[in-house]
């Protein structure tokens, strides 16, 4: 068959490939135009220059939480955190957004749970959240440095850079991350909204950021403020810090330590601290009203 016919078909094919490649490139660049102006990494780095190398962490005394009301009391802490950070309330458990929530001993510590665990330990509610790991998996896998580790150890989120690939959720061994499957704003209670904290958009991942904005102002995280001394915050690298003092006095465990991520949320079992660690009912809640906006419980 004629050479000519062959060559004409090829010419069309070639043009087809050319047009296809061009169309792809055009489409991608058009999409890119939609990206918002974003904060440059260097800007963030300069903001961090004042922060020394630390590793902030939390010590959660589950015995004390139980003594103060257990699940019911922890629910008030969760509500305070969620309303302060405008976390949407979504009823569908498959899509619900949580920065801090509770699990049973068996669930939170499935790797070390015993068949014959004592009644107290088994009955406690265990608040779980981001562990602000020393070597975080999520930071390693994120393709855009949306989630990154601050020099003070906080694992941060940049909601304006996240592409919503959810690789961090697959990598996190603690299930600490929530993805906005829908627009979160309609699910934030308008009467209970904190105008001082940004809401997120659909399609991005969020999680506990250890209230970096309060820490930067010299305060402590909201959950610590709402926990009446049951949760201790501090720098784990400083042996004189309050958190190190608390940890040196009681038995503590962490979640899934064998994975090597270095979780920095400790769970303490010691209800004697209720009386020795400076907490009395007379002092009342340790809120700092000027930092907690309207709506914080």
């Amino acid at each position, binding site marked *: 068959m004629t050479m000519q016919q062959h060559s004409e078909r090829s010419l069309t094919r070639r043009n087809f490939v050319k047009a296809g490649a061009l169309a792809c490139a055009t489409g991608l660049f058009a999409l890119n135009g939609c*990206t918002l102006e974003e904060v440059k990494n260097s800007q963030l780095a300069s903001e961090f220059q004042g922060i020394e190398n630390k590793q902030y962490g939390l010590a959660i005394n589950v015995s004390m939480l139980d003594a103060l009301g257990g699940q019911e009391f922890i629910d008030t802490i969760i509500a305070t955190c969620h309303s302060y950070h405008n976390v949407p309330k979504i009823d569908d458990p498959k899509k619900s957004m949580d920065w801090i929530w509770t699990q049973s001993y068996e669930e939170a510590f499935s790797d070390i749970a015993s068949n014959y665990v004592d009644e107290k330990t088994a009955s406690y509610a265990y608040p779980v959240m981001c562990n602000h790991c020393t070597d975080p*998996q999520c930071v390693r896998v994120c393709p855009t440095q949306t989630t990154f580790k601050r020099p003070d150890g906080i694992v941060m989120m940049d909601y304006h850079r996240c592409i919503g690939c959810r690789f961090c959720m697959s990598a996190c061994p603690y299930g600490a991350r929530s993805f906005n499957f829908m627009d979160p704003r309609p699910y934030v209670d308008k009467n209970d909204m904190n105008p001082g904290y940004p809401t997120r958009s659909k399609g991005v991942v969020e999680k506990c950021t250890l209230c970096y904005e309060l820490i930067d102002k010299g305060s402590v995280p909201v959950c610590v403020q709402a926990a009446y001394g049951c949760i201790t915050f501090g720098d784990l690298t400083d042996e004189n810090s309050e958190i190190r003092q608390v940890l040196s006095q009681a038995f503590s465990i962490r979640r899934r330590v064998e994975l090597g991520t270095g979780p920095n949320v400790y769970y303490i079992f010691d209800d004697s601290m209720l009386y020795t660690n400076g907490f009395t009912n007379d002092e009342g809640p340790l809120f700092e009203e000027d930092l907690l906006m309207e709506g914080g419980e």
Partner: protein
Amino acid sequence: MLEKVFKGSKLYYGWLLALLVLIGVGVLAYINQLVNGLQLTGMSQDVNWGLYIAQFTFFVGVAASGVMVAIPLYLHDYKEYGPVIIFGEFMAVAAVLVALLNVVVDVGYPARLFNVILYPTPHSILFWDMVVLSSYLLVNIIIGWTSIAAERKGTKPAHWVHVLAIIAIPLAISIHTVTAFIYCGNVGRPFWASAIVACRFLASAFAAGPALLLLISFIMGKFTDYKISDKAVDTIAKTVAYAILANVFFFLLEVFTAFYGNSPHHTEPLAYILFGVHGHNQLVPFMWAAAVLIVIGIVILLVKKWRQTRELLIVALLCIFLGCWMDKGINFVLAGFVPNSFGEIIDYVPHPNEIMVIAGTFAIGAFVLTLREGIAQPAAVAFSEATREAAETQKAAEMEEAVEAAKAEKAAREAEEARIAAEEEARRKAEEEAAKAAEEAAE
């Protein structure tokens, strides 16, 4: 003949129309998802990757499988694969396209996709996946384009195209290896955190990909003048057989390691797909269907007589392709999320909207492939008919000219002959006269 089949073939245009309708449905479903968010999928906070990422994984494999044709041809000069290779390269392009589309539809904030390039992050496997996938796509487009250009000019492709084709071989291996690394680096997901994932991926890809290549070749052979030799078919079928056996072997290694060691982290996801756990057994039918299909495929491929019977071969290839798809395009990704961080099992129930989006991405891949072998051809046929007519007119004119020239030549020759004859005559007469005169003089 190709042009007779494609020109005005109802089946062909019906197929294209059906694909276009599917693409339209997919685009509408995607717009719906853009507006309402990824709540229109079966994904949840616990199963945060679903069928999209599974299709991405599977089709990266199909794209990589082109090397099973490229290695024998380029490294061992196995000439039987000559006609197969360009088609294989275009199948790779279509497969990469489907894979990339499934990533685009999966991300929550697609407008920010270019952040992966704006903030390059070498410690993220997704960054490397982007690098190797786009390199592979580019290399395949360049090879396809230049090969076609060479074919058009009736010459061999330039030497550097051959070099590129050889570079494409490790690139193809790399795209699937890096895709496997996305999974096996997650220490918190024991089903994925296995060193053999990349091997499993490559083995199942080298089975499913060439199987699809053969199936599409048979369809092409039925409707066009695309020809693939029986020898090439049998060699590719043998490749599929070896690859699927390796895949089964690797899976059994996983089963042994998990169940003999009996660590619950390793056994639970496997038990979930093999038998179901605590009443959760939605993936069990896919697991066993895949097992049965793959065994049927292996048996047919191993018996030479059956393998060389075209109808049985088609059954075997279909079985293996579907089996591999159920294994990698459904179960592998979903089972990785079982159990979650808290030992819970959360089922994945696909949303109709995401099925439509996926169907749309498949249709786009099929459309691109059909266009390459299809629409380009009727257009070329129409074009070539016009040129053939022009050529014929020219030929006729040339013929006339030639005839006239011959006539003129003949006339000239006759005139020349006449002239020569006249001269001869004159010379003879002169000689005769001279002779006569001489005689007379002698007398």
